[in-house]
């Protein structure tokens, strides 16, 4: 039982990272039906930008709150710019073309980001400052909870809450929801479709970058290929929760995190992806719209 709870704590922490990236997939997919394969790699870019600021620029020596604000905000902006560039140069001309063309381009962008990162930051594993946040924790019964875990989960919950508030409470959010239903109708109502798509890409990138920095803080080690598996699991989470469905993406992320933690705990770390994909395939076969139902109409 103690083990189980311990794995649950780990799973929820990791799951909140996946949930953030999954939200990026879901927002972009909901609006333009594009699987932005580069989503995970945007996370990686965010992680490296954060690392550059903290370690290369030495911001880790600043007061902790200031360092954290810089380490989150700057990569979020930087990654958003990168994603906007991707949208403008690669996806925009293809939006009206076949699904295959867009998907292959998205794959190309993912490869491009990875290899550019390798060129810029090198192929070596880099390390976040290990003691940025106090590594101590406390026990709840037999379960050890660290302050880092609490801080990261709270931060991602805040980001998710902010996102929901944005989408539900603002005019732009309403426009996004309208676009998810019908592009042409939204355009006829005077919504600037291109601008809304750009906002979706900015939001997706910001969430991805934040999760990247969190991963860096949590796992310490970062590598230019880290985005691949992260993106894959996050996408799995998005599909599991029903793509286009925002609460679904959050729940899906948590679920994947838990699944991963239990597999590692009870079975072995080497089987993680087999279990994760096995569950994904099973869910898609049994309920193709995901556990919580899809929020998009099929493009005929």
């Amino acid at each position: 039982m103690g083990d189980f709870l311990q794995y649950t704590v780990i799973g929820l922490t990791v799951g909140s990272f996946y949930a953030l990236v999954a939200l990026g997939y879901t927002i972009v997919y909901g609006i333009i039906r594009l699987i932005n394969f580069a989503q995970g790699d945007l996370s990686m870019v965010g992680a490296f930008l954060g690392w550059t600021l903290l370690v290369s620029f030495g911001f880790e020596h600043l007061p902790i709150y200031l360092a954290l604000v810089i380490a989150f905000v700057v990569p979020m902006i930087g990654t958003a710019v990168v994603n906007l560039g991707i949208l403008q140069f690669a996806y925009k001309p293809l939006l009206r073309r076949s699904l295959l063309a867009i998907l292959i381009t998205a794959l190309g962008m993912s490869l491009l980001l990875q290899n550019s990162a390798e060129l810029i930051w090198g192929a070596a594993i880099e390390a976040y400052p290990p003691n940025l946040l106090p590594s101590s924790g406390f026990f709840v019964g037999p379960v050890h909870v660290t302050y880092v875990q609490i801080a990261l989960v709270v931060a991602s919950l805040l980001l998710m809450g902010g996102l929901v508030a944005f989408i539900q409470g603002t005019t732009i959010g309403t426009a996004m929801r309208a676009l998810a239903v019908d592009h042409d109708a939204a355009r006829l109502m005077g919504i600037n479709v291109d601008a809304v798509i750009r906002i979706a890409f900015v939001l997706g990138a910001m969430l991805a970058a934040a999760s990247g920095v969190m991963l860096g803080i949590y796992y310490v080690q970062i590598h230019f290929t880290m985005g691949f598996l992260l993106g894959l699991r996050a996408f799995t989470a998005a599909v599991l929760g029903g793509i286009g469905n925002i609460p679904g993406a959050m729940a899906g992320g948590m679920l994947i995190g838990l699944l991963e933690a239990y597999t590692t705990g009870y079975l072995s770390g080497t089987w993680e992806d087999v279990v994760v994909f096995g569950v994904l395939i099973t869910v898609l076969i049994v309920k193709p719209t995901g556990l919580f139902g899809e929020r998009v109409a099929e493009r005929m």
Partner: protein
Amino acid sequence: MIAQLTERPVGRVYATVRDRLGRTPYWSRVVVSLVAIGVAVIFWNDDYVTAVAVSVATYAMLGLGLNIVVGYAGLLDLGYAAFFAIGAYTSALLMTQAHWNFFTTLPFAVLFTGTAGAILGYPTLRLRSDYLAIVTLGFGEMTRITFNNWEYAGGPNGVLGIPWPNFFGYELNTQADFFIVGLFLLAIAMIFAEHLDHSRLGRGWVAIREDEFAAESVGVPSLRLKLFAYVMGGMWGGLAGAFFATRIGAIDPTSFTFQLSVLILIVIVLGGTGSLPGVLLGALVVVALPELLRELSDVRLLVFAILLVGMMLLRPQGLWPRIRRKPKPFYGLQEEEPEDVAARILREHQVQMEERDRRHAAAGHKVPAAGEILLEVDGLVQQFGGLRAVDNVSFSVRRGEIFSIIGPNGGGKTTLFNCITGVQRPKRGRVLFDGRSIVGLRPHVIVSRGIGRTFQGIRLFKNMAVFENVMVGLYPRHRTMTWQAMLHTPGERKDELRTLQESRRWLSFVGLESMAGQLASQLSYADQRRVEIARALAAHPHLVLFDEPAAGMNPTEKLELVGIIRKIRDLGITVVLIEHDMSLVMRVSGRIAVLDHGILIALGKPAEIQNDPAVIEAYLGREDDDMGRLTAQEA
């Protein structure tokens, strides 16, 4: 581009040469080109060059397999390396553990990968294409990780010491030997792929890519065709895997990563999706380019990524795109006189009907005679959320009559058609055709039972020629098997010719023979509707459902349509019509049903319907309604 070329003398020579070449059998061209390549490489006599050439051949083989999946069937597969891995491991384990000969392991490598393809494909091919991409990606990773964790297969170390292949006592152990084997396998793969592409399967795949829903509705078993492409592609991957294993001598899970799947995809996208020479060219670029740019090997993938994205933006058709020659319809067919055509259609149709009735009776079912009930709809209910689109509708259609369904927009007419043709499953109620229930059958099965249809919004395969559209409609009537298509046997050729002949007859039946070679999208609205009618008739249905066939037609065209509908009835085919043009409906229909808000409010002969107060009310509103009186006066 080709058209521009033919304007110039050089272009004309090129066109002539191409035409001549086009008439030689495909296999001879493949054999000649590959032998030429083989001779050139072997006479170069450089081990390094030959080794690179073997790699190119391996990638080309993989590309050809994936091309069937992606290029022909239009399914995105991001885990193709899994099939390569399964083939490689099957062959390697059989050779090292069971000490089999390489060539004996091949059937098993192919069998295992084919089975894996079927197991993965069957449940997942119903998914949307982008989901399928992720599922295949997941499958690829699962396969690799499983091999990585599987002790018997050597775990992370893989299988070592795989012996050379032994060909009747001759050990193949030089790069040149492997190159010859590789070219041989490649030749077979290319010939089979080309034959498939030009068979009814190829046509079915194009139709599915263009409009899967329409393809299924005119009789193409879309799931089966997709599954077949998947299994075929998997089998080629398995073959390439076995070849790879024995050539390298040691395999481990790192040879079968996601990156490999992406590289193979790049091979075909770079070369031109669906193009066979494109696959060869793509393989050459993907393998040889990094060899040429050795010092750049650090940024190899970066260059690829840029190439890939640039390619999609600037030259999405690929380096050697698939050339769609302007289709020459009816090339080599005998001319037929118009009266002759009509007589043949009638005869052929009667033969078909009799054969069908006989089979039907032999199976113990009652065969409705003319005037007896052919289609019976009983208590049909279809509901979307709170809206009852079809509410407890019952009627029956007699064999040989023209039956019209009319009613205001939103009355549930098209929903009714969709329930009958298997596009939707009704909530409640029965649909009996020929005395047998057809509820819950897939659309293509219902087509083969003998119901054809057209669509309210035209759903032709826009980028196929008119006659090809009709040939897709003939899909259920092919008599040849897949292996015959792959080998392009005389039987299959005869079958294709017969299909072509019949498509021509049906086009002449609707008066469009002269348009046969045009792309469907180039035709006028009215002509497109007629092509849809020909496509629906091609399968020799018992019953056709036409959804607003006169929409968008001018008065002359409508008059011609009336003639066509009567001609169809004269063939003995029962016609059910949804139509808004009252004069047309009144002129052709034997009986008319009126649907309003999903409810059947009237059923009877045209004269009865015209004077039915409920019908007048549904169309024009009640007497005390000002608007109603106004419209009534105008009318």
